[in-house]
């Protein structure tokens, strides 16, 4: 069974909500990245989104753009991240990992070759923010393969009538953009965010996660009864940078968030 689906099934059984983080791959380096991932696994993070750096990250806010830019300067690329994935899987790190990446990186690698590489290196899911439903056929053909990663579907408050179609064959979880636009906004959530999350939850057969703009468990308290988990991106990157990637601080943040989310 896919690690994401397995983890989400466990959480459902325990009646718990998922805590998901985003980190830019290869930052500050690949060895440290592996330690950060292991620390998070032990601290209670349920799923990790690993950002593959791209030169033109149009769906990201300034914090992740900057991290992505620095990763590229350090020479981080898809091949190296796939190798790092293999290494951490052979080091018995079993936390579900989702690649967050732009479609050009996949096209350039070759769509089928990329899916095969994901299967080989233990990638569990894909988030491709510039690949809306209408453009997904090409990659979906190869995602039928055994042990292929799940394509995570995104919805936004303006998706409205599109939501049922997007969720029809969705697997894993559905990623809700919580304020219109990009990551890194302050926590001034879209005015009708509760209605919106409710409307997604109503149609969704899979867990509903809220992302974009969250810093602490308190930020999602008003929506806690609706959502199945929270995703922290920009704030987590900033926290790691400001604390010089201190493992203890990272562990404490993740542990606290996970605990408070489930209180």
């Amino acid at each position, binding site marked *: 069974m896919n690690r994401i689906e397995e983890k989400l099934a466990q959480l459902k059984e325990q009646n718990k909500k998922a805590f998901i983080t985003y980190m830019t791959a290869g930052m500050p380096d690949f060895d440290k990245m592996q330690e950060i991932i292991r620390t998070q696994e032990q601290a209670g993070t349920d799923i990790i989104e690993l950002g593959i750096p*791209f030169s*033109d990250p149009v769906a990201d806010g300034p914090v992740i753009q900057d991290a992505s830019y620095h990763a*590229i300067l350090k020479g981080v690329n898809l091949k190296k991240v796939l190798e790092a994935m293999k290494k951490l899987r052979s080091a018995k790190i079993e936390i579900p990992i989702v690649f967050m990446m732009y479609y*050009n*990186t996949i096209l350039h*690698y070759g769509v089928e070759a990329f899916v095969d590489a994901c299967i080989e290196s233990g990638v569990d899911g894909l988030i491709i923010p510039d690949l*809306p439903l209408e453009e997904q056929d090409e990659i979906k053909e190869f995602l039928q393969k055994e042990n292929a990663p799940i394509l995570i579907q995104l919805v936004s408050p*303006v998706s409205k009538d599109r939501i049922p179609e997007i969720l029809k064959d969705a697997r894993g979880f559905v990623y809700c953009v919580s304020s219109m636009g990009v990551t890194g906004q302050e926590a001034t959530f879209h005015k009708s965010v509760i209605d919106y999350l409710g409307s997604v939850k109503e149609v969704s057969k899979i867990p509903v996660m809220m992302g974009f703009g969250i810093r602490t468990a308190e930020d999602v308290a008003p929506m806690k009864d609706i959502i199945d988990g929270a995703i922290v991106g920009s704030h987590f990157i900033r926290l790691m940078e400001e604390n010089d990637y201190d493992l203890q601080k990272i562990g404490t943040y993740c542990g606290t968030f996970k605990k408070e989310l489930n209180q």
Partner: protein
Amino acid sequence: MNKKSYYGAFGGQYVAESLMNTLKELDDAFEKYTKDEEFLKEVDYYLKQYVGRETPLYFASRLSEAYGTKIYLKREDLNHTGAHKINNVIGQILLAKRMGKTKVIAETGAGQHGVATATGAALFNMECTVYMGAEDMKRQSLNVMRMEMLGAKVVPVTSGSNTLKDATNEAIRTWAKTAEDTFYVIGSAVGPYPYPKMVKYFQSVISKEAKKQILEQEGRLPDVVMACVGGGSNSIGMFADFIEEKDVKLIGVEAAGKGIETGEHASAMALGEPGVLHGMRSYLLQDEDGNVQLAHSISAGLDYPGVGPEHAYLKDSGRAEYVAIKDDEAMDALMELCKLEGIIPAIESAHAVAYAKKQAKKMKPDDIMVVCLSGRGDKDVNTIADYLAGKGYLN
């Protein structure tokens, strides 16, 4: 896959989910109003009374004599604001008005599209914000001033490489957050569907006029139609009405910068591989990791790593031929046109003139070539001065 958003294997809508309904709304409005007599009349009115259309199709007799074939110049440089960009801006902003939007945003490289958008925004009383790379703002301070005089806010973009592609990224990000009241005016034949279609529609006035004018003056269609290609807006407008005329050879001229072999060029079709950027799938300059490579050209307007999807399709289908001209070849042609015809062309347009000289060698004296002179060179005098100083041209 939404077939209608594609030109063969190119085009599409590679954007965030949050923009998909916005693009649909835009396409619906475009389809509705381009069938609306009142709307079309209004566009025509402003093109005639404000922009100054139609522009002449000028028989360049001294240039023709020098190059050895009949050369006609489609004088887009005579438009208000000095280039073809305004044709599309008038159309898109009138559409924005119809859609009830109150604000427009745009990206700009050298500032030409920014100035055109700021002009249209002033004319139609819209709030205007232009995104421009911080580097470009320094290099093009006069255009920044023009935009500000016209009432636009110019926002410096400091992410990535600080140039046009990053300004475009920033405009897309802003649009994704503000689409409810904001219209994104894209200046080139690029971006997600329906933008390439819209830009072609509003720029096709160039070829509609040119076709009529050449029939009046020569009584027949031209043998060759030529235009420079960055993102590809003047060229797709120049080609549009000739695409179905199979006997007319279409040639797009990209910027070869310092030479294709040096890697410092802007010729997406010469060496680019298909990729995805700015919402479209098309030929794209990229490095070995699939990151977008910076383009280079002495002309800021051609300095773009991608190209409009319909051009990619016209290339693959063989309907149009795409060639490239180096910085120094373009500058030589620029000087030649100044001296032979008393016209200072934009450096972008000079690329087309430079290739016209090469193409003319394959043509007979009675053959006819139409070259799109997309803009005037006033904006380029600083660049030209620097170039000539380096070359010792005028000394």
